[in-house]
């Protein structure tokens, strides 16, 4: 091996212009977490976390967030494909509409969901009369509320990934005889897998932290709709700020655990 290849890459000193803003950003993100940790009732934490109610909320949160993510991936990836790959009219408007939940205050989102899916709602009425299905106050309703706010993350991430992949791979697959579905499954999807994963992670995290739309649409019923954020809200209203902080730490810990586990795949993009 020649000396050139054996040497380490040229001394990569971080330019001050990049370092300073990064540190500021990092501080902005981390200091509030540190504050939370400082006020946490560390001695009481095991009791808080071991309590039945908290475990129930935790299970509910994990279950609903996961179901939401699966739903968003199943529906969001085809939607992203439609936006990125077809020439349907009105795509630009559609794209804009899909990002509305990102800017809508979640409570308004919840009200909108009620108008659409409540028992007297646009679609909800039909659902109730035909199938006896009522979404508000149910765990399914929680999934609907979470999906509403989290799906845009997935669609945007995947559409972005699709736009950067070379469409000519799909052309080549076509000349080799692959149908549209086969091409999507074996050529397109693997090439955007990192984008899908990144989108899914964002989707999951957003669903986990969702409060406004959930409490407005699904209510805060322990065991069925009281996810961790709603349980924290309840604790505060009960005057038990310590439990609320403890619950918040649980959410932070769970999120960090999942994100760290997936980080390698997310960043390396394999």
């Amino acid at each position, binding site marked *: 091996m020649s000396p050139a290849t054996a040497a380490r890459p040229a001394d990569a000193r971080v330019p001050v212009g990049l370092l300073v803003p990064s540190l500021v950003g990092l501080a902005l993100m981390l200091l509030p977490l540190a504050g939370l940790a400082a006020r946490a009732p560390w001695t009481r934490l095991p009791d808080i976390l071991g309590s039945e109610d908290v475990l129930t909320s935790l299970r509910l949160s994990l279950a609903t967030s996961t179901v939401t993510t699966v739903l968003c991936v199943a529906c969001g990836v085809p939607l992203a494909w439609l936006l990125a790959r077809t020439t349907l009219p009105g795509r630009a408007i559609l794209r804009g509409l899909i990002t509305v939940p990102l800017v809508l205050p979640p409570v308004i989102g919840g009200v909108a969901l009620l108008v659409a899916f409540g028992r007297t709602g646009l679609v909800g009425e039909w659902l109730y009369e035909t199938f006896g299905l009522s979404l508000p106050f149910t765990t399914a309703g929680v999934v609907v509320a979470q999906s509403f706010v989290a799906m845009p993350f997935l669609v945007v991430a995947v559409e972005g990934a699709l736009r950067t992949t070379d469409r000519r791979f799909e*052309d*080549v*697959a076509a000349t080799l005889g692959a149908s549209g579905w086969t091409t999507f499954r074996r*050529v397109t999807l693997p090439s955007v897998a990192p984008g899908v994963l990144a989108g899914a992670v964002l989707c999951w995290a957003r669903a986990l932290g969702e409060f406004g739309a959930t409490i407005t649409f699904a209510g805060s019923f322990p065991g069925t709709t009281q996810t961790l954020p709603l349980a924290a809200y309840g604790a505060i209203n009960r005057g038990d700020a310590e439990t609320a902080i403890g619950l918040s730490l649980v959410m932070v810990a769970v999120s960090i655990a999942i994100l760290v586990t997936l980080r390698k795949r997310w960043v390396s993009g394999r």
Partner: protein
Amino acid sequence: MSLRARIVVRRESFRLGVTLGVDAGQVVALLGPNGAGKSTVLAALAGLLRPDEGRIVLDDVVLVDTERGVHLPPQRRQVGMVVQDYLLFPHMSALENVAFGLRARGTPREAAHVEAMAWLDRMGADALSRRRPRELSGGQAQRIALARALVVRPRLLLLDEPLAALDAGTRPVVRADLRRHLKAFDGCTVVVTHDPLEALVLGDRIVVLEHGTIVQEGPPGELARHPRTDYVARLVGLNLLRGEAHGQVATVGADAAVALAHEAAGPVHVAFPPSAVTLSLHRPHGSARNTWPGRVADVEQHGDLVRITVDGPVPLLADVTPLAVAELALAPGSEVWSAVKATEVAVYPA
């Protein structure tokens, strides 16, 4: 068994209109400068582009007929394609790449892999079967891409600048290899290239495309001897003039005269190689020579010789020795006289 195609594509600033025929076992090289429309022709043949007008028939199967609204999608044409940067699927191994077409058409995985392996063997690439595309060199990737296209037994093979992605060192070897494989292929082949040497080596017939129209077609030798456009002339390294012949003289360019070795009449092409041109500072006197005044526009190294671009009533390229350049003190702006023997001038009807 053959390909017969008429393709018309209209864009804002561009119009492509070609009629192409390729017999089974034949390789047609589609040659032309960038922007001539070569890739558009391939895309239309592959089914990736809908021509505005046209009819494409491959082995008695109508692929495209705009009048009757027929347009088979790429999957239903028996067309194989190898593109400039090969586009091997990055997340699959070489073997999986080659097997892709078979599996896409329903062959079970095991059988597809066996057949793909046989093809890799034939290409001398069996050792590469497990490698990922990013672990392959340009030449290796080209072989895999070719195998991938051939394994589904296409009736028409399309190659888009197949050697462009290779460095000059590997190109000759891969080119010779490719010629062997194309010779062994029994369907029709269309190779698109901007490199004349590639066209000459790979093609049984050359079709020259400029600005969306075919300006010349024929066997490689014919093109080399009798170019019909400046582009082709430049490609094959000839000076080309157009003029009217009357007896043994032709009037070319801005009213200059060229003495011919034999009689001709009517509109003609006049061609002579740069090496047939001699330059001097004064008007030469001598036998049967054509002489024209001019001014040096450019001086450039060209192999062992120096290529001089001369402007004037007869614009031309002259190859002279470095010694001559020094003796004549040739530099841009110098006034020179060019001379060519009538016997070195080729004349043919335009």
